[in-house]
């Protein structure tokens, strides 16, 4: 781990072990995510993809192993418990959006801006509107409650909230799950455009093969508690591990690959 490489690595996971009772989810998992890339994490259900995400954003502590995010040690948690302002440098979009249901959509985006910056209420409102429009939400939706808008719109609102403080790192948990294919590919394009424009690093847990093809620079496959394969989607597809073959070359995988070929 040379000092030069350190500055290119946004997330470094070493020897991660996660145990829940008698069940071991991660067994010595190593992973590097580079700055400016979009990495997609795939793997069978129950392999601990979302757990990994939660551990990286310091919501859960692993049983063993180290996690560094943007040079800050996240696990094992430093005794001071201090994330050194890391929580203002990342944005997290949870699977169902996790929007605060008592606030309007716009207030959800305003909340982090109000909480952490000294920006005036009026400008904060303008910025929140910009973020929501960037995420593809029409004006009428800004003042609605999360319960009053569709699932796809909630995802967009959650993305806008994750982007409220202009993070360097964006975490997406199943960003396109539950969206119709048209909305899903729109969402993919949105993530790609925003990443290119803002220079984000994106860590994405997904099952969506189209998203992997369309958006991700690299794909990491979690199998039996480790990163079984990592690389561009074509590199990973070329591997002969049985699950990988079934995943990428099953009917859905082929369809996603073909559509990209066209």
């Amino acid at each position, binding site marked *: 781990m040379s000092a030069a490489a350190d500055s290119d690595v946004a997330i470094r996971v070493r020897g991660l072990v996660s145990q829940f009772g008698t069940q071991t989810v991660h067994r010595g998992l190593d992973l590097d995510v580079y700055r400016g890339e979009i990495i997609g994490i795939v793997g069978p259900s129950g392999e601990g993809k979302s757990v990994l995400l939660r551990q990286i954003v310091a919501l859960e502590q692993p049983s063993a192993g180290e996690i560094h995010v943007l040079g800050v040690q996240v696990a094992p948690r430093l005794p001071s418990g201090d994330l050194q302002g890391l929580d203002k440098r990342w944005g997290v979009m949870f699977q169902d959006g996790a929007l605060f249901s008592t606030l309007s959509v716009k207030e959800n985006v305003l909340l982090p801006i109000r909480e952490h910056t000294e920006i005036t209420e009026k400008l904060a409102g303008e910025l929140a509107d910009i973020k929501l*429009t960037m995420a593809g939400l029409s004006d009428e939706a800004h003042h609605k409650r999360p319960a009053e808008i569709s699932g796809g719109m909630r995802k967009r609102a959650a993305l806008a909230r994750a982007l409220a403080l202009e993070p360097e790192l964006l975490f997406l948990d199943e960003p396109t799950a539950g969206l119709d294919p048209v909305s899903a590919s729109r969402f993919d394009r949105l993530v790609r455009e925003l990443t290119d424009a803002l*220079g984000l690093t994106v860590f994405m847990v997904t099952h969506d093969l189209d998203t992997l093809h369309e958006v991700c620079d690299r794909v990491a496959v979690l199998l039996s508690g480790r990163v079984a394969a990592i690389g561009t989607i074509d590199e990973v597809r070329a591997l002969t591990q049985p699950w990988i073959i079934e995943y990428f070359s099953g009917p859905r995988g082929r369809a996603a690959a073909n559509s990209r070929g066209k």
Partner: protein
Amino acid sequence: MQQRETPAPATFQLLTGAGGPVLAVRGDWTVWTVSGLDAALLEIAAHDSLGAAIDVSALGQLDVAGAYLMDRTVRGGSPCGYTDTPVRILGAHPNVERLIDVARGAARPCPLAPVPYSSLDLLLERAGRGLSQAWLELLDTISFLGQTLTTLGALVLRPKRMRWASMFTVMETAGLNALPIICVLAFFIGIVVAYLGARILADFGASIFTVELVAYAILREFGVVITAILLAGRTASAFTAELGSMKMRQEIDAMRVLGINPMDALVAPRVLAILFMAPLLTFLAILAGLGGGITITWAALGISPLLFLSRIQESVPIEHFFVGMIKAPIFAVVIAVTGCRHGLQTGTDVASLGRRVTTSVVQSIFFVVVLDALFALWFIEIGW
């Protein structure tokens, strides 16, 4: 451990260049640094800087917030509305054009100014809303009560459809488990009434009538009212929360599409369970209340428990006991129906569940007290 270097403060200068005004920006323009610039930028935006070029040669870091502010300044300061005029950028910066594009791409049409309402209008609107809401609530309660009664009627005809297991579970959690707290409360109420009687009646030299006072109060009112209020606080809220979270997680919808009527499966067992348990609880609450009365009359007035009981037998007619007991099942139905109704009417968001639980407790206590008052009038009229 690397940290982002401290951001350079964001500043700007409005220069007059050869081709018009130039907005020369300096430092880092990010969401963390631009808070102080807003007012000054708005001030010059209206006319001075309209159409200005942006000189970014001294610009450090930039994000969407910073780019938005620059763009807003050169296109007149309005937070909304579209513009075709391209932004002229002087100097080189890795991503300023891209970010200004992003900020501009997020432009929205200006909303129409809202029609102002006078405060009298708003007051009247609220009053009207509240009134029609109350009326609709009442209609809804009555219609739900009717629905429940038809469901129960149908179950009597076809008892096989009754969910006995569910009913016994509710009898235990809502009935049996509430027994200790109800008895303790009733005991203390008995103490309070007995003390009150001992103090006041002593002034008239009629301390012995404390027995009648305690018996009348506990038998007619306190036994049943304490039980009902405890059930409202403990059970109506639980029913609303249970059914409400099932509603939120679409479990109720799942039942309906599986051909299971939630009135049969969820409401009927709960209503019946409380209907059976409330009289039992009331009876035990009455005993506990009398126990509290006996304790105090014995300790403060020296009336022995035996004397207390035999005096009750002699001078307190049995009607008083029935007055209390008759009310128990009626309160029980009101409480269970109110709890279940609010549960089933919960919306899909968390806040509505909280509101429903509160409303269900307040409403069931309200109904209990109002009905109790009506009963009091009625029993006096029929001479009980």
